[in-house]
């Protein structure tokens, strides 16, 4: 192998150096095959390729004159530091042990700490856990280290390669002191995470090299597993003397001379006795949220070692903590000048998947957006303003004119209700998302509103009913061309989990596609049974849909259902249905004209002043969604009950049911969302008032029976207004009578029958009405219709 062409590197026998040095930590010869497999000495250490080759770094005495002299006695005093750093092993170890023994985090909200006593030292409890479970990995939150000892934190960030082994040593000493009898597979490894150094891939720069960093991103490619030699086993072909050579800076130097028989070039590598570690290359791309507009995302190479291999899959969003490396391009002895570019990568120490929780449905917004204190202050000031609701709604899509109530509805949708979990009582999750349907004439900027919302929310998806199939909305199974592995690709609805799914041209969607929405819009889950994969994904998405009337113009003489021809089962799942119609009124026209003209000549700065910044709006919503979860106050509950009872009463006078529990649920969600807008933890009666008002407005628009002029909820819930149903029944009865009057005629002509009925009836009988009546009678098994003939049954 050509990598052994290098001039041989003198191999230092490990036992020539003091064994207790942290730098010697983990050398293979420290593996004692002895019987008592406990205690620091008894447990084998495992190499940490994630830290690179560290063992060769000598310690230096700061006060010694000869620079770079190797100190053979590490315990000589405080003056010793590791070469190239200001880290003193002893102090560092002591500090870290103190941290482990003392650090408590009473206000911890991390779910990893669930079940731990927050008032006791956190990491001691974790050590105890290790002794029970036997998984020798200790994850340490860097922020804890920072709050405990800023100096230690600084050293950890700047010299991770030296400090982490010291931590390892410290924790192992402490552990085996505490739990002398526990048996671990190998020594405990410390894995720091959440280093505050870097958050964004874009901000990595040469100063970060060899430092501990945390970046977030999305995994786009993972390589096959690569066995990397950690230790080569060589055997002399002449005298069978064997020797081991460790990897040093990515190379293994072949011993040129046998130390036993002094023959040159007699040593051969024995593969199956060499030690390999697992390695994997992972490509990570910047998260789309972190990107400035108009640029392409950056990618970074990450190496995962040992048990971190195969921890992440393409498509995962991860926070990676690791050491940033820059390696010069390989020097070729045959070539004199080289490319002056370095290769960079990150040696991963810790992965944290940020979207993991989405599948388990434990908590929302795993990647909590960080708000600076100033920002929070601004947001709170804004929230305290009495007209914050109006301000925010007018800041929404300022280029779209008026439609105040629709904007308010969408605003409430952006905030969403409070998520409630009733799974214990068997009710399952309670939908917190508000679904909205916009119907109206073409060209009333519905699409524009949808585009705006899609651009506003971080997890927005935009699909058009025309182009999307059921598969595009839900999920599909794809075979990865490289690995031949089946991969579940998620569609728009799953992708917009915790966000808003905007569906344009809702009416153009095929029935098949629409049917998947039934489950999503109430249960908030998506069931998939495909290619052997059966699973239920969370799709806690709010749906904002837009539909055009079937006829090109909205027909005011028809009900909503008749106009858009959507199944009422689906319509009833929308909390708010708005009509976007052209109001025909002079004052409105004038304001509209003014608005539009100013759109075309005002400079952008002028426009900015008038409205709230889109960025502020985004932050405001994100903050409220993350931190505010209002609960109903007693007073509000009463108001809601009253509102519901009132709604039921309205209809009962006319013998109709006018409200269902679904409407009550909608009211609750809207009230909660309105409380969120105010940053209030309590739903109060003003919230209920607004919810009622908005709900009523929407109903007034969408559920008014054009025949009677009354608001009739059954138009939306059963697809037909009560009067229409009554009318249908009457016609059917009249028809039946007519047929019976004709006596014993087994078959009749369709047209004849229609004419007869028309002649008999006082009111106009449309063909549709007649057909419906026939169908009703057919349902009764009274007759059948075949083509143009109507046949009586028995």
């Amino acid at each position: 192998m050509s990598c052994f062409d290098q001039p041989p590197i003198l191999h230092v026998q490990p036992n020539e150096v003091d064994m207790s040095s942290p730098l010697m930590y983990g050398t293979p010869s420290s593996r004692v095959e002895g019987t008592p497999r406990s205690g620091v000495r008894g447990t084998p250490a495992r190499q940490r390729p994630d830290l690179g080759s560290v063992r060769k770094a000598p310690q230096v005495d700061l006060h010694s004159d000869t620079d770079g002299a190797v100190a053979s006695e590490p315990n000589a005093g405080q003056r010793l530091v590791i070469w190239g750093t200001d880290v003193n092993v002893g102090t560092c170890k002591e500090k870290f042990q103190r941290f482990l023994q003392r650090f408590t985090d009473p206000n911890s909200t991390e779910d990893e700490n669930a079940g731990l006593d927050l008032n006791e030292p956190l990491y001691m409890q974790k050590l105890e856990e290790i002794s029970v479970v036997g998984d020798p990995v200790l994850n340490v939150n860097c922020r804890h280290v920072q709050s405990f000892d800023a100096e230690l934190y600084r050293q950890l960030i700047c010299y991770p390669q030296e400090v982490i082994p010291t931590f390892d040593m410290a924790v192992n000493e402490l552990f085996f002191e505490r739990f002398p009898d526990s048996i671990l597979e190998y020594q405990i490894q410390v894995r720091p995470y959440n280093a505050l150094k870097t958050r964004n891939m874009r901000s990595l720069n040469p100063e970060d090299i060899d430092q501990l960093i945390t970046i977030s991103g999305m995994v786009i490619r993972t390589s096959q597993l690569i066995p990397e030699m950690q230790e080569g086993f060589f055997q002399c072909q002449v005298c069978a003397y064997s020797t081991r050579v460790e990897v040093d800076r990515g190379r293994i130097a072949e011993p040129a001379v046998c130390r036993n028989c002094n023959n040159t070039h007699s040593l051969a590598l024995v593969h199956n006795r060499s030690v390999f570690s697992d390695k994997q290359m992972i490509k990570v791309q910047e998260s789309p949220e972190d990107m400035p507009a108009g640029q392409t995302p950056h990618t970074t190479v990450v190496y995962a070692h040992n048990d971190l291999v195969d921890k992440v899959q393409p498509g995962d969003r991860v926070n990676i903590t690791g050491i940033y490396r820059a390696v010069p391009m390989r020097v070729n002895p045959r070539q004199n000048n080289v490319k002056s570019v370095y290769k960079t990568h990150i040696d991963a120490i810790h992965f944290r998947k940020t979207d993991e929780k989405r599948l388990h449905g434990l908590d929302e917004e795993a990647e909590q957006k960080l708000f600076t204190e100033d920002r929070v202050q601004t947001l709170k000031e804004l929230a305290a303003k009495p007209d914050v609701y109006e301000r925010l709604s007018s800041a929404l899509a300022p280029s779209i004119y008026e439609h105040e109530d629709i904007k308010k509805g969408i605003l409430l949708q952006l905030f969403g209700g409070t998520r409630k979990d009733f799974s214990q009582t068997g009710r399952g999750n309670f939908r917190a998302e508000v679904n909205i349907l916009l119907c109206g004439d073409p060209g009333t900027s519905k699409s524009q509103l949808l585009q705006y919302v899609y651009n506003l929310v971080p997890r927005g998806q935009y699909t058009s009913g025309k182009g999307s199939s059921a598969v595009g909305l839900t999920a599909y199974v794809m075979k990865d061309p490289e690995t031949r592995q089946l991969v579940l690709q998620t569609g728009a609805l799953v992708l917009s989990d915790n966000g808003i799914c905007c569906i344009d041209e809702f009416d153009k969607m095929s029935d098949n596609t629409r049917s998947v929405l039934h489950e999503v819009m109430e249960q908030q889950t998506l069931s998939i049974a495909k290619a052997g994969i059966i699973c239920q994904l969370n799709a806690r998405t709010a749906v904002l849909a837009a539909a055009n009337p079937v006829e090109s113009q909205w027909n005011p003489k028809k009900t909503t259902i008749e106009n858009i021809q959507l199944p009422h089962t689906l319509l009833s799942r929308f909390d708010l249905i708005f009509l976007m119609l052209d109001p025909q009124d002079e004052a409105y026209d004038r304001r509209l004209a003014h608005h539009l003209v100013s759109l075309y000549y005002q400079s952008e700065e002028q426009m900015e002043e008038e409205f709230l910044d889109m960025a502020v709006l985004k932050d405001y919503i994100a903050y409220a969604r993350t931190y505010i979860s209002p609960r109903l106050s007693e007073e509000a509950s009463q108001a809601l009950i009253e509102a519901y009872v009132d709604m039921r009463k309205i209809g009962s006078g006319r013998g109709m049911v006018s409200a269902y529990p679904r409407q009550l649920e909608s009211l609750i969600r809207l009230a909660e969302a309105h409380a969120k807008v105010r940053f209030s933890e309590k739903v109060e009666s003003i919230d209920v008032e607004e919810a009622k008002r908005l709900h009523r407005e929407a109903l007034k628009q969408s559920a008014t029976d054009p025949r009677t002029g009354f608001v009739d909820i059954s138009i939306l819930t059963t697809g037909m207004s009560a009067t229409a149903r009554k009318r249908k029944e009457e016609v059917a009865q009249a028809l039946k009578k007519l047929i019976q009057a004709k006596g014993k005629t087994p078959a009749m002509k369709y047209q004849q029958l229609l004419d007869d009925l028309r002649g008999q009836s006082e009111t106009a009988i449309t063909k549709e009405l007649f057909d419906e009546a026939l169908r009703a009678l057919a349902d009764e098994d009274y007759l059948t219709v075949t083509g143009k003939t109507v046949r009586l049954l028995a």
Partner: protein
Amino acid sequence: DLCTHIHTDNPHSETFTELCLLDVLAASQNNSNSGWETKAVEFFQDQLKERDTHTLVPSLNDVPLHYLKPNSLVKFRCLIQDMFDPEFYMGVYETVDPSTKTKMLRCGKYKDVTECGVDFNSRNTVTAERQTFYCVPIPGENPWVKEISSSCLTEARVVPSTSYAPSRQKRSYEEDDDMDTQPQKQREPHAGMKIPSEHHGNGDCKRQETEAPSSQTASASHLDLNFPLPGEKGPSCLVKVYEDWDRFKLNDTLEVYGILSVSPALSALADEKDASSSLLDPAESMETAEEQRVHSPPASLVPRLHMLHAKPLPHNNPLLPSAALEDNSAFLSSTLSEMASVREEILSYFTHVLLGDALAAEYLILHLISNVYSRRDVLPLGKFTLNLSGCPTVASYTERFYQIIQQLVPSSHYLAMSLQNMNQMRLVPKKDYVANRLVSGALQLARNTSLFLDETQLEQGQLDTTGVRNVTALGNLISWQKVDYDFNYHQMEFPCNINVLIASEGRSLLPSDCQIHLQPQVAPSHLEESLSSIHMHPQASSQLNKFRIYLSMARLLDYSISDEVTKSVEDDFVDMRKDDPQSISAEDLHRMLVVARLLSLSLGQTSLSRDSWLRAKHIEMLRRSRMEQHKCVNGNEP
């Protein structure tokens, strides 16, 4: 040889390019932190600002690569097609002379390859960061632009007859472009002078004969240079950016001034890696061969350009002064005063082209000068997509029509919307994670490119998934002036500013801002005759140039509406609604405001006058009544 020829011929040019270079090179030798670098860069920028200095710098667009001197100053008019990851390089490094053991500090900036004997363990090494952009010539740049900009250059420096720019070769580029867009039988008369055997890979042949190494030509053939449009030619370039790379955006058009680096060592490194086994270094084997090829292609094919200065291009019309309009008030006022008269000429020309339909010609002018000048939240303002329906399907009318447009706008592209094209073409750029690059698509176009969609080519049939996606992408482009690039795991939205013109028989299936139905005044039997007369018109090049300047200028003008006019527009709207609310919707007002804006600009007026508003209203009314009429004739029209 030739390089020295060019330089010695014109003393000024020589001193300029040589001097700068010497400056940099000298400075890099005795690297000290005295800020030599900022000084040198400033010197360049000052020099380039001076009138006409920039014309002395040879351009990669015009001069074949092998005629350019390595490590000299060149310029490149290009579009940022892809942005690679930032790279760390040795900003300062130390070399050790193997014989004398003397150490020397060297500067790695503006260079790809180090000097001999780098000491990797030196403590003096300074790591610095730079960004790499993959740049391609502006997609769809029309032959006349190339011709004029290269002739500016040659005039400036009086190139001897043995010059590098044989006009024959130039011509053949153009022919190749035409080839893609017009069927064989439609060859223009002026194209007759081409030599039939010439047009296939002519550029490549030329290159091969001067670039000796045969190994590279092999790799060149399968290296995809990733041009957005099919059939494009020209060098692509890896531009290394040292400062403020955040100010550049994808699809920006720039004129980059930088140091050309074509070191053969670069390709040698790449070759060697291919040859040697990947076992060599696990760290390097991670990079797939594919990625290697894309990120370090042979320098002879994709030269490296180390940026010293970049000038954003608001337009790529070589006939306009490159300085901002405000700075050039003489030019501005002279053109402004002429605009109305030029408009008359261009209107009559277009009327002729559009078979005598003056109204359609009017709208065509408005369309050609439209421009997305601002965005209000998601709404792009100023776009004016025109759907020209009722195009004759005989005599390749649409292709001929496109050729006229091609003669007038700096960049354009003809996209035949045939089923096959829609189902197979890649319109939307897609990230290729294996090669780690953005694979370009036909919709990755520079600002103000004219995209001509020929829907008359569309026949009945099945659109597959790609087809549906492509049609959706075109729809999004027209409605929102944005393209959602496909990043596999997510989409990313890139705003664009493309003038879309749809030629169709009936109303287009794509959305449009404005539809006008062509009413030819020419009998179908005379169509052929009339069409050929357009082309026979020997449009004097001065006339053409006038039109070219006119169309580009109108787009660059400012525009405002005074309060009084605002008021009267409002009144008008209210009145119209009062009479018949159905007659005008908010959308109609949107369109009328755009029409009024474009109409004013087309007349060289920078603010809306009452007259222009009335005129806009008038032509809108004419257009709408024509549509009504048309609807009555074919009742089945939606």
